[in-house]
């Protein structure tokens, strides 16, 4: 009852005309800026934060939430159209989204991403509304061993499902862990693997690795295909630019899977959209009747990670609003904005600042609708990018890649790294090494090392701490099972046959 009256109060705040306008402007700006490679939600919010300084707290946080949503959706657009992930959580969307674009279903993929964002975003907000307090308490029980186990589980799923050769999947993952280690050690400031290069002290930027391995590698492979390389087909007619009933039907479970996975993992401080999108994709593939088609452009392969990516938004706000703990970079910036406006996120926020708390929750319902209304009509427009002839499109991809890599740090040194990772992506494609484990290993490498070392510090270097805690033991057990599954002949035959039939 208290929740219902709070929500009604929130809608009264959020539906005020100027707040609806802020929500709309936030979604639009977030989508536009989020499309650019290198500018993920955190960077987009940071970039646009000054716009909200003069606004009242309710209007300001409503606009920031709109920006957050918009940026998340924008990041998927370049993943689908150009195989350039706008941020780490959009990497999985590349796997099937870009393949759909290659088959002439770019519009459908963008539409599915928009609908998945809407469904999962709404589920995430409902979750935030109803179960925020108990979930936040559960999230508090997660400590370093549980985070380490969670990451092991995510990595195991990705390795299992990313190719026919487990060895190559694991090697790709280990390479990603190594790249993540480059730079200054988290605890002791020891320089590691920097080859005498001072710019490497700060580590390798995610954009450089992702753009190099995915975008440049893909362009080089396409160029190798030679004169037969075709412009990506874009069918004419609005009907062909949006998902059809068959595709939407295929995504039913994926919408639900992405929504629940994204919300639950989003609730964990540090869980993040990246790992939730990988896990949702893994679950979707594992549960699918046709896992062999994943990676070739199936709509479920877009819907599940995109849903998880957006449901994470609602989940990420649970620890922020109820405990004052930001779960990642984006929510940390939102926290700083709230503090700036004199609002204290935490258990008392619902009582002390009901306008802001419930206004934000209600505005997220509205933001989901705004995002859908805004993005579905824009899908055909975005898809037109693919009508460019390849001899123009490929230089444009090189240009965007340079902007994305250079924009992250402002250093030409990073462009040199981009060149190296581009060659690596091309070589991995030729030698049939899966790239997804490399990216996830890189993204989670530092967090994984931190969680493991903190766990061992907690236990005076006793590794048993990882299996003595029930949640951690369960997740590690599942991860080990996942990696042992291929040792069972019949299952592995089915797994390999399923994946190789792709070809």
């Amino acid at each position, binding site marked *: 009852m208290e929740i219902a009256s709070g929500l009604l109060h929130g809608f009264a705040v959020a539906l005020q005309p100027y707040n609806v306008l802020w929500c709309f402007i936030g979604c639009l700006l977030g989508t536009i800026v989020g499309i650019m490679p290198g500018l993920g939600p955190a960077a987009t919010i940071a970039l646009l934060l000054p716009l909200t300084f003069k606004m009242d707290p309710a209007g300001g946080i409503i606009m920031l939430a709109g920006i957050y949503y918009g940026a998340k959706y924008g990041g998927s657009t370049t993943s689908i159209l150009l195989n350039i992930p706008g941020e780490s959580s959009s990497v999985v969307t590349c796997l099937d989204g870009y393949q759909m674009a290659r088959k002439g279903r770019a519009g459908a993929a963008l539409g599915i991403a928009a609908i998945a964002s809407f469904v999962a975003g709404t589920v995430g907000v409902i979750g935030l509304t109803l179960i925020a307090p108990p979930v936040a308490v559960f999230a508090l029980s997660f400590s370093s061993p549980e985070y380490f186990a969670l990451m092991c589980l995510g990595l195991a799923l990705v390795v299992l499902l990313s190719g*026919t050769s487990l060895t190559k999947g694991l090697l790709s993952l280990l390479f990603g862990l190594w790249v993540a280690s480059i730079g200054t050690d988290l605890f002791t400031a*020891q320089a590691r693997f920097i080859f005498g290069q001072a710019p490497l002290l700060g580590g390798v930027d995610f954009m450089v690795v992702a753009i190099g391995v995915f975008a440049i590698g893909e362009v080089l492979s396409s160029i190798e295909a030679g004169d037969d390389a075709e412009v990506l087909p874009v069918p004419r007619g609005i009907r062909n630019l949006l998902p059809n009933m068959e595709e939407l039907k295929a995504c039913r479970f994926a919408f639900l899977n992405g929504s629940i996975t994204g919300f639950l993992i989003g609730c964990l401080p540090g869980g993040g959209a990246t790992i939730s999108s990988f896990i949702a994709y893994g679950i979707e593939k594992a549960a699918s009747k046709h896992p062999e088609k994943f990676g070739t452009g199936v709509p479920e392969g877009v819907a599940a990670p995109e849903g998880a990516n957006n449901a994470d938004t609602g989940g990420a706000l649970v620890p922020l609003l109820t405990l004052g703990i930001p779960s990642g970079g984006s929510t940390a910036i939102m926290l700083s904005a709230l503090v700036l406006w004199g609002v204290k996120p935490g258990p008392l926020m619902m009582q002390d600042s009901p306008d802001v708390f419930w206004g934000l929750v209600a505005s997220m319902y509205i933001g989901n609708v705004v995002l859908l209304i805004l993005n579905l009509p824009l899908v055909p427009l975005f898809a037109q990018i693919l009508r460019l002839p390849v001899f123009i499109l490929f230089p444009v991809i090189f240009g965007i890649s340079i902007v994305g890599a250079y924009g992250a740090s402002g250093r030409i040194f990073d462009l040199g790294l981009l060149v190296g990772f581009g060659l690596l992506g091309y070589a991995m494609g030729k030698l049939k090494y899966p790239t997804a484990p490399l990216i996830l290993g890189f993204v989670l490498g530092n967090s994984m090392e931190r969680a493991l*070392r903190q766990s061992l510090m907690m236990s005076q270097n006793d590794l048993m701490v990882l299996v003595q805690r029930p949640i951690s033991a369960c997740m590690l057990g599942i991860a080990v099972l996942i990696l042992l599954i291929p040792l069972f002949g019949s299952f*592995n035959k089915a797994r390999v046959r399923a994946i190789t039939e792709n070809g």
Partner: protein
Amino acid sequence: MAKILRDGDVWSGAALAALGIYILVQASAWDYFSLDGPGPGFFPFWYGAAMTTLALVLIISKVRKSNAGQEPQQGIQPETQTGTPQDKPPLLDWTTTGRALGTWAAFALAVVLMAPLGFVLSFALLTFFIVAWVFGRPLLTAGITAVVTALAFHLAFPVALGVDLPTGFFGF
């Protein structure tokens, strides 16, 4: 033997084994455990060891398969599943591979030229090369595409959005 030496998996396995050994050597120079807990060498030691082991498994499985003259049976040796037809690295076709590597080299050269020439000129040169050499379009088409694309990027990013891009002697 010659067949093994032409196998991409063997070469990539050897490169990764070498990287794994390098990681192990480097990690052994750093603290494994300190008074405060695991040191900077702890985590790299373990993934370096795993990388070396797995890379050797990849090479050995290839050599064994080559000696046996048959594909490994799927499901019995999961680590050797690279022998499936789709996983065989294709033999190099130097015409097509050369086109890809030529483009990569041009990209690398464009990056080298970014510091002295700036983004606009070096990107225009890269675009010209791709359009004229890779796609074999007429030089006029290549020239127009290069100029228009580079200018469009300059207007969209540094001018309209204020995004910094490398500038050279000419200030753009």
